[in-house]
């Protein structure tokens, strides 16, 4: 005699937690937030390539894989802790836990396993400094941002943004075994980029955040204050984007790209500030900010890979 344990057809008195899982590999991949992971890997790659010295391509690849898996672990642990919030938000209601495809315990185990594994392997195959930085990044994102700041302060993404800004430093440390000014500048660029990027999104998703009880700036301080803050952070971000050129580790092509795209960011921030009705400028800012960060790091990467050709050519 056998019983079919479909999720919705459990016999009475049977503990639902023993029902076989309907989660496929795609659900586990979704837990790792692949889009965020791709940005993390890209910025870490730039840090790795910019670093002085030589690293064997295989060791570099191993470092990037560990950083990617570590980022995935942080994403999974974030989804484990925030399952209640995700269920109340339209944008996240389809994630594996709120959709009922995975249980929280499974996600916690998956996230912890990946976190431990990625840090240990990075330490064994690359170096201990990079591994320690990866552990710090995961812990900061999960404990400081997800568990503490996200639900308690509108400055959540400002401080929490440090976790997303660390990957270039990890990439750099994977080669050098240490940290210096250059990757810290890259860290600061991503750190200052995070608030305008997420607040632009939060402006037109404010209702969603309010329903979930997340104290994002537009929910707590209102739209006007948020628009002003976006402008302030963008005014700091745009000149900061040019600093790698001033410090001499990026060519003129990078400098020009940073100036032009930074000017567009500032122009969009002013439009957001001036916008009285609707969210056209906010949506444009959100979309362009992704392109902005990608372009800055892509030009940095191209500049270094081409051996400074961009710089010489422009000069």
């Amino acid at each position: 005699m056998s019983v079919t344990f479909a999720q919705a057809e459990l016999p009475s008195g049977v503990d639902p937690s023993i029902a076989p899982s309907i989660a496929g590999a795609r659900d586990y991949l979704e837990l790792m937030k692949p889009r965020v992971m791709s940005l993390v890997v890209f910025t870490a790659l730039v840090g790795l390539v910019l670093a002085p010295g030589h690293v064997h391509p295989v060791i570099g690849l191993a470092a990037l894989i560990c950083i990617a898996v570590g980022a995935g672990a942080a994403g999974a642990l974030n989804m484990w802790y925030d399952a209640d919030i995700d269920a109340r938000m339209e944008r996240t209601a389809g994630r594996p836990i709120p959709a009922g495809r995975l249980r929280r315990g499974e996600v916690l185990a998956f996230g912890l396993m990946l976190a431990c594994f990625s840090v240990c392997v990075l330490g064994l195959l690359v170096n201990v400094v990079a591994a320690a930085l990866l552990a710090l990044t995961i812990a900061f994102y999960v404990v400081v941002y997800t568990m503490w700041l996200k639900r308690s302060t509108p400055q959540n993404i400002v401080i929490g943004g440090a976790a997303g800004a660390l990957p270039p430093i990890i990439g750099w440390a994977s080669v050098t075994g240490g940290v210096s000014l250059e990757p810290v500048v890259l860290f600061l660029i991503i750190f200052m980029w995070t608030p305008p990027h997420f607040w632009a999104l939060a402006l037109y998703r404010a209702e969603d955040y309010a329903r979930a009880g997340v104290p994002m700036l537009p929910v707590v301080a209102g739209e006007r204050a948020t628009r002003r803050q976006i402008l302030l952070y963008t005014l700091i971000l745009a000149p900061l984007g040019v600093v790698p050129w001033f410090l001499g580790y990026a060519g003129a092509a990078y400098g020009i790209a940073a100036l032009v795209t930074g000017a567009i960011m500032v122009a969009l921030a002013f439009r957001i500030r001036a916008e009285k009705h609707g969210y056209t400028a906010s949506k444009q800012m959100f979309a362009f900010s992704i392109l902005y960060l990608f372009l800055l790091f892509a030009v940095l990467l191209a500049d270094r890979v081409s051996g400074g050709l961009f710089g010489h050519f422009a000069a």
Partner: protein
Amino acid sequence: MSMSELMNDGDNASAPPPFPPPQAGKGGEGVPGIRLTEEQLRARRSRSIAIAVSLGLLVLLFYIVTLVKGPGVLERPL
């Protein structure tokens, strides 16, 4: 059928035992208790393939890194 019905063999000595020997097939056919649905079978297969691919890539990575690092990989202090 409830568990008590399954367990109740009454006085009928010729009745088959409530739990026949397991004869596991695809999805656990022949095994008392759980029989997976098609959806669950697909999900399990998908997870199994993902685990196999991940482990294979991990072995390959360790192998190549060992080649790259050369004899030094064995000189790690304990």
